[in-house]
């Protein structure tokens, strides 16, 4: 009997410290599989963010670095430019990427830097305890918007794919979700494309993934996954926002 599904060799044996039902784990598993399937684990360098997934440096079974909050794209650039043969991926949360790291992601995208960015949009600052993120939905409660995000005072959520699509630089921009198997499979494909683009030296790919944070949403894991389907996806439409590979055809 053969194992057809199981812990991929792209993950270490370290058990994850994420909360039950956290979307980070699902994405980790996919990346862990791709590192092996694409044969890039031994030339990969991963960048962990500051956020719940800061511990990604313990979880991915490849070389890893943990840089300052938000600066993953800059660190990635430094690595990729000095070791073009390495496959460099930056794993970031919405606080990391869309708040403090706004300048770095925009400029890496604009340079069409040949890296892969995995962007976990859980609409909240997970690690610090549920404060409002740039992606927090209007009216959504957080510990710094206890009465719900008030767009008059706290502004509008940032839609990262739509924003980056305003740049000429990036090669591939897509938004997916991990709240059900169908969407997880799409996420697998998107991430495969994103790594594939780097291998083919096409340039910048970013996969934005809607992901559950049951703890800070104040929901059960099952409620969370449903909330993505019912509510979050409406605000953050899934799909490709840029795919130069298709355009070029």
């Amino acid at each position, binding site marked *: 009997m053969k194992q057809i599904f199981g812990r991929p060799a792209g993950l270490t044996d370290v058990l994850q410290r994420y909360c039950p039902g956290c979307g980070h784990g699902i994405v980790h598993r996919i990346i862990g599989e791709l590192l092996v399937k694409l044969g890039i684990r031994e030339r990969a360098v991963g960048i962990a963010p500051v956020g719940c997934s800061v511990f990604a440096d313990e979880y991915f079974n490849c070389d890893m670095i943990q840089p*300052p909050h938000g600066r993953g794209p800059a660190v990635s650039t*430094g690595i990729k430019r000095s070791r073009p043969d390495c496959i460099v991926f930056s794993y970031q949360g919405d606080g990391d990427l869309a708040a403090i790291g706004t*300048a770095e992601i925009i400029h890496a995208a604009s340079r069409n830097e040949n890296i892969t960015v995995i962007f976990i949009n859980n609409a909240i600052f997970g690690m610090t305890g549920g404060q409002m993120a740039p992606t927090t939905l209007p009216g959504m409660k957080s510990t710094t918007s206890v009465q719900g995000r008030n767009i008059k005072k706290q502004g509008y959520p940032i839609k990262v794919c739509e924003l980056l699509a305003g740049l000429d630089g990036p090669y591939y921009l897509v938004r997916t979700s991990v709240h059900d198997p169908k969407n997880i499979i799409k996420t697998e494909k998107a991430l495969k494309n994103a790594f594939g683009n780097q291998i083919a030296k096409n340039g910048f790919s970013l996969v934005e993934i809607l992901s559950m944070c049951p703890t800070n949403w104040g929901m059960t894991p099952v409620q969370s996954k449903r909330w993505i389907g019912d509510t979050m996806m409406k605000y953050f439409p899934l799909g490709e926002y840029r795919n130069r590979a298709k355009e070029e055809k």
Partner: protein
Amino acid sequence: MAEKRLMYGNHAIVEGVLAAGCRFFAGYPITPQNEIPEYMSIRMNEVGGVFIQTESEIAAINMLFGAAAAGKRAMTSSSSPGISLMQEGISYIAGADIPVLVVNVIRGGPGLGNIAPAQSDYYQATRGGGHGDYFTITLAPNSAQELFEFPKLAFELAEKYRNPALILADGLLGQMMEPVEFSYDPVDPTTLPEPSYALSGCQGRDRRVVRSYDLKPGKLEEWNWRRHAKYQHIMEKEQRAQAADCDDAELVIVAYGTSARVSSAAARMAREKGYKVGLLRPITLWPFPKNALAELSNKVEYFLVVEMNLGQMVEDVKLATECKNKIHFHGRPGGGVPTPHEIYEKIETILGGSS
């Protein structure tokens, strides 16, 4: 002896960095060091290295973090406000024990200040302007020649101790021209060994992790104590200073970089008038050349600290001399450059009474 070239200080740094085998530069323009990225963009293109004009100094220091963690010699340069923006990054790099080179061509501060030469980032450089317990090895060149030579020294020290290194220059050193001798054979970067921490893909070896955090109880404290031991070692072993005419001196000027140049003229003037004046020039600002000063403190009565700031090095001189001596200060903050004459007058006031 190699041929000499008349070069801008800022260009001498670039040649020094390349001769040191560095092939990675990331930086953001700022006066008075724009000639560094400008010339670097041309030279890196020639030698096949990486030049990135970044979106900000924050991006620059973090690109450096990446490149250096990937095992490459990597550098950035900026001037005061830009260096302030790098403090978080420098603290991370120090916390991850990664060697990088940061050049600060200091200008008048605080704030936007002006673009005149200054030395007012001494505290920031020697006390770690970022958070946490760390130090950066800090070199203070005083000529275009040293601007050429110190990058190699800085990389070697940085790598030996796995610690960021700083070169502190100022607008005057950067923007003047002086003859430079290419005094050593350039390092071929392909001959540099891959460091033990280098992120390069884990083929044929265990995976590596570069990071500055540890949440396991007590672990971070351990790291800090280990680093403490390293710092103690560096403070003992890597002090560098240059002494001139100190043997019989009654008064020793303590000055680095541009102020040391200017002071040397003042010392010459004083000697001509019969005052016994020497000059001690710290070359490493951290580690501070305590031993040289401690020795002098037993022979010399007066010290005169000369700086282009409000007296930031004075405390280090006091500490090194165990508060035994009379320590005077002559400073020009906010972009002022002292003249030899001014300093000479100060010497005269100090020694005038005594001789």
